[in-house]
Structures are given as C-alpha cells and as structure tokens.
C-alpha cells in the first residue's frame, strides 16, 4: 500500500541534503565546539555557518540567533527569560487563546507565580481582533506573545501590525513562528519582532534542534544555566549535527520557499475544494480567506464522527493526517483551538487536519479525495448521532444532549 503523509505540521522527514550535511559531524567531525584543538576547531566554524544560514532566512544578524533543542524550549525560554529579566517593570502578559501548549502552559505556569495573563479570544474562524489586543495593554504589560501561524488551522496572524502596536507601546514582542518559518516570508525587522522561535523538525531538519531569534539588546535570563555556550545564553554542549542540519534546511527554505508555497497551495486548494464538494455536512475550521491561511494546511470537521477513528480509517489506506480529538492528543479534552473558535463539541472531536509538504504530489491528493468520502460514510453509518432524529422509531435523547453542550 502506498503511504501518503499529510501530517507535515506534526513533523517532516529530514531532507536528504540535510542528512548528508549532518553525517560528518557524527563521524570525523565529532569534536566539542568549545575545544581548542583540531577536533573542536573543525566544528566551531560549522556552527557559525549554520547561525548565518538561520539568520539569513529571518533577516536577522547571526549574533541574534541562539540554538536550542526544540520549539517548546524556545517558547519557554523566550517567555520565562524575558519576564524574569524585566521583573519589576510589570507582570502582565498578553497572548491568545489559540497558542501552542508550549506558550499556553508556560503562561498558565506563570499565572500560578504571580503574573497576570490575558488570553485574547478569537472569532469563529479563529481570527484575532487587534483592537482587543490594543485594549488589553496596561502599564503592567511587558510581553505580547502571538503565534505567526496556527498549527491546527493554519491561520496566519497579522504579525507586522502586532509588531507595530508592541513597538508603539514599548512592549517586548514574542512570536512562535514554528509553523510559519519555511512556509511564509519572515522578516524580523519588518515585523518588529523581538523574539522569534522556530523548530528544525518542521522544516526538513531533524528533531532535537530549534532556534530562537533574540533581538540585540533584548535582555533575557537563561533557562539553562551552566557553560558558556551560545554566548552564555544557553548552556549545554551544542547539538552540532542538528545545528548544521538546521542551517542547511534554512538555506533550502530560503531558496525554495516561494516555489514550494505555490505548489503546496495549489494542491491544498484542490483538496479543500474536493472535500467540501464531495462530502456533505463538513465544516471548514479556520479562516475561509485562503491568503490568510498557511498554504499547506486544511482543517475540517466531518459531522457525526470522531477524529481518531477517522484517522485510523485513513491509516488503513496509508493516509497519515491528524486530529483535534481528545483521543488523538493524549489529553481528555478536544483541541483548545477548536474550543476557542466555539466549534460545537462533537465537531471539535471530529476536526481533522491535512498538512501538506514540499514532497506532496497531486496523485496523493487524488487518492485522498477518492478514499475519504467512503471512509467518512462508513463511520457515519456506525454513529448514533447520524440520521438520529430522522428515524421515528425512537426518541433521540443523545442528539439533544449533544446539541445542548
């Protein structure tokens, strides 16, 4: 059976060029970059080259890039480190209800430690109202954290405008750009971003490496204390091979991004149009304005069926996607993003994300369009919610219960 991977927002395969660039750093060039001798020297230069490659993709300068182990570490470090450095200046953070858990749970943790957090609501399509944002600012506000693009819906937020607001009020601005980097043009200068986080495994580099852009002059208390690596900003022997891989992935992204955007977008639009046309009672989650959604992301809910079981059904056909259902997330609640968008609870459990990558082919999309209608119907036929109320033989207590929620 052919395997069709449509879960690039979860993680991507490592690009062959990236892996090739990494391999020498497991073998001959295994030194510790902090060392004085040949084994160290061979490696220190490679890290600085990667730093330039990452910086170039963001229009930053290399000294502003700190390598970390993942996007989550970057988000934790940016938020906790900034607040601690600005202690005494204020204790209020503004973020949104649709952030990744790495931001949300960090903020919740901080709330327990004396900080005030405003979680900006979004509308039914997941959009943020910038007037709400500006209205939430107080003289205690020291950090605004808004993601560049949402991992579940693909919604793109108006980072440049938010950057301008943050600048006007002289508030530090952090953006989780884990899903945006590689897919959208990123310019930290133009966007007035102070802190930006990216993660290697979302852009063809390996898992276990990420980076954070820290605008020159933005003081931060380190999250990891210890050695002098990364100019005292992040202790720990550097993941040399991973860093080299991240550099190459950024270089490839810079070169191919525009072309890849078009290719993914065309295929995603085909998938979106096809599913919406073929399957009744389907709901798009996220903004209908495709220019304000990531080019690779489609999130839909199929009424009456639960997401994990649909994933498993697709999996039987070799199709890998993901779901906002509680069952597939490891928590007991369905996706907080669907919750924030006021998606009705059974539809939230049914939300299904298709995320394409540079390697996705039209043939794969055609297969999905062939397989999905029957898979959805099969589960609907098993569902007590489907056609419920249309059958006259029984009272439909469940449906009512569900709809009330």
């Amino acid at each position, binding site marked *: 059976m052919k395997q069709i991977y449509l879960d690039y927002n979860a993680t991507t395969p490592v690009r062959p060029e990236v892996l090739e660039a990494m391999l020498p750093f497991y073998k001959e060039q295994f030194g510790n970059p902090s060392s004085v001798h040949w084994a160290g020297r061979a490696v220190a230069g490679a890290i600085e080259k990667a730093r330039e490659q990452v910086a170039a993709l963001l229009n930053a300068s290399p000294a502003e890039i700190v390598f970390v182990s993942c996007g989550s570490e970057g988000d934790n470090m940016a938020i906790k480190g900034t607040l601690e450095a600005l202690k005494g200046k204020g204790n209020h953070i503004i973020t949104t209800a649709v952030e990744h858990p790495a931001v949300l749970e960090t903020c919740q943790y901080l709330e327990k430690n004396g900080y005030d957090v405003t979680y900006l609501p979004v509308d039914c399509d997941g959009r943020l109202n910038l007037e709400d944002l500006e209205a939430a600012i107080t003289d205690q506000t020291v950090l605004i954290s808004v993601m560049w693009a949402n991992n579940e819906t693909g919604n793109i937020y108006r980072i440049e405008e938010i950057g301008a607001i943050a600048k006007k009020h002289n508030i530090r601005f952090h953006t989780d750009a884990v899903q945006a980097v590689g897919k959208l043009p990123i310019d930290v200068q133009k966007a007035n971003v102070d802190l930006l986080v990216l993660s290697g495994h979302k852009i063809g580099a390996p898992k276990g490496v990420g980076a954070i852009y820290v605008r020159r002059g933005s003081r931060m208390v380190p999250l990891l204390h210890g050695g002098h690596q990364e100019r005292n900003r992040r202790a720990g022997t550097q993941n040399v091979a991973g860093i080299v891989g991240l550099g190459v992935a950024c270089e490839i992204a810079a070169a191919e991004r525009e072309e890849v955007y078009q290719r993914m977008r065309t295929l995603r639009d085909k998938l979106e149009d096809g599913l919406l046309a073929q399957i009744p009672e389907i709901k798009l989650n996220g903004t209908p304005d495709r220019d304000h959604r990531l080019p690779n992301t489609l999130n839909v809910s199929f009424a009456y069926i639960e997401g994990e079981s649909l994933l498993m059904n697709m999996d039987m056909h070799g199709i890998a996607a993901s779901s906002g259902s509680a069952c597939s997330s490891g928590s007991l609640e369905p996706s907080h993003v669907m919750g924030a968008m006021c998606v009705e*609870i059974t539809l939230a459990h049914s939300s299904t994300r298709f995320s394409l990558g540079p390697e996705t082919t039209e043939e794969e999309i055609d297969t999905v369009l062939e397989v999905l209608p029957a898979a959805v119907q099969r589960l609907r036929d*098993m569902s007590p919610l489907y056609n419920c109320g249309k059958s006259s033989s029984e009272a439909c207590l469940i449906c009512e*219960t569900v709809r009330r929620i």
Partner: protein
Amino acid sequence: MYTDKVMDHFTNPRNVGSIDDANGVGEVGNASCGDIMKIYLKVEDNIIKDVKFKTFGCGAAIATSSMVTEMAIGKTIEEALELSNQAVAEALDGLPAKKMHCSNLAADALHEAIKNYKEANG
C-alpha cells in the same frame, strides 16, 4: 498502540447497526469526552438473541462496542450483567492506559440496555 484484536474489531466491527424492534436500548458516554455508545437488544426468553451497536468515538470505543456485542450474544440477562468493562478490555488483549477511562464503556452500555429492557418488560 492498539493490539491486533483491537485493530481487528475496529477494522471489521461485528454487529454494527440498530434493531428496529429492539426491546432494550442503552446509551452511555457524553460528547465532551468524545465517546457515545448505544446498544440495541433483542431479548427472548431471558436470552440475548440479537444485539447491535452504534458508536461515536475513537478506535477503542468502536472495538470495545464490537467486542461486547460478540460477548453478549446468546447469554442470559444475568450472565450479560456480569460482563465488565475490564473483561471486554481483556478480551481485546488490553487497551492503552489512557483509553481505559473514557473509551471503555461498552459493558456499561450493555447494562443500560438490559436495564431498559427490564424496566419495559419487568
């Protein structure tokens, strides 16, 4: 994550559907957990002659529903009442820990259906 038996029951669920002249119907679960199970019974002479299910839920919910129908069919009411969620999970060679709470309710649905039968026919 899932055992072969779970995958088998998910892939080829037994006894899906409803029974038009059911004399016992039971429902459990709720939408916020993401699992709703409905069991239809046809009881004759105190014996479960036919049983069908409809389930909204994850793979485990569908597999346990399917399994419980297989286990219940042919049993007396009393025997069926002794079937536990735990026994259903064991018959499937186990379920992932996080699925034990919300998705392993099929025996409860069966018991609800029996209760409903008894109320109507008791």
